């Protein structure tokens, strides 16, 4: 199966109440869809995007005060 977009996966400390703030931070034409797995201890942020690097996303998030690092 071929995905036309890139998937980025991050470890965060996001909670459901951060939703609106994150929506603002990630409102870019390059970001197609994002979800957070709040059930997981790593609160995994999953982003489907085109033409944006993991580093750029990490910068966006951390500059707004949210911890965000690439999940390995």
């Amino acid at each position, binding site marked *: 199966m071929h995905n036309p977009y890139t*998937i980025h996966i991050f470890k965060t400390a996001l909670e459901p109440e951060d939703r609106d703030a994150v929506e603002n931070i990630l409102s870019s034409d390059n970001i197609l869809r994002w979800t957070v*797995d709040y059930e997981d201890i790593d609160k995994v942020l999953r982003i489907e995007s085109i033409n944006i690097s993991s580093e750029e996303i990490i910068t966006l998030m951390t500059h707004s005060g949210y911890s965000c690092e690439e999940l390995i």
Partner: protein
Amino acid sequence: MRTRDENKEQIIRQKTIELVVKEGLDGFSMQKLAKAAKVSPATLYIYYKDKEDLIISICTELTMHMLNDSLKNFSPDMHFDEGLKIQWLNRAAFYMKYTDEVHFIEQIRYHQYYQKVLRNLDGSFRETMGKFVHKARERKELAELPFEVYWSVAFAPLYQLIKFHWQGRSFSNESFSLNDKIMMQTLNLVLKALRP
């Protein structure tokens, strides 16, 4: 950039089924799955956005496989006796071959996730079986009964026999193994009960 790997996807599905059957849905987590499948947690998130997405997607796929298999060599135009026999044989074959998969579906069936699984199905199975029952009634091969009564009589005996088989014993026998003779003996009673 991460890419999908069908082999890995297969292992993830297999391990999910094993873990849920062994530890139940509540004991299951993406972290445990990553360990069992020997992949990094990040890899799981390439394929699925969270536990719910993973479970619903696997359960939908298995359910579709099960329903499609039950329609092998089956036509809704068949005489009721013949059609029900094929349904029994197909369902029994699937339950015997895919025991873990069936137990996995059973774990999900009583969870809120199952409603979403049902919404993912296209309705063709339901339509085919509905047509089968409708025609059989028209031809007076099947009694007019409320759906739940019809279904319980038509299929529950088979599922109970399979349960005894899995337990390897019944209430009165130390050992029990389901065979065609026992299945057909039971089916004939069911058919007799369902005639108008």
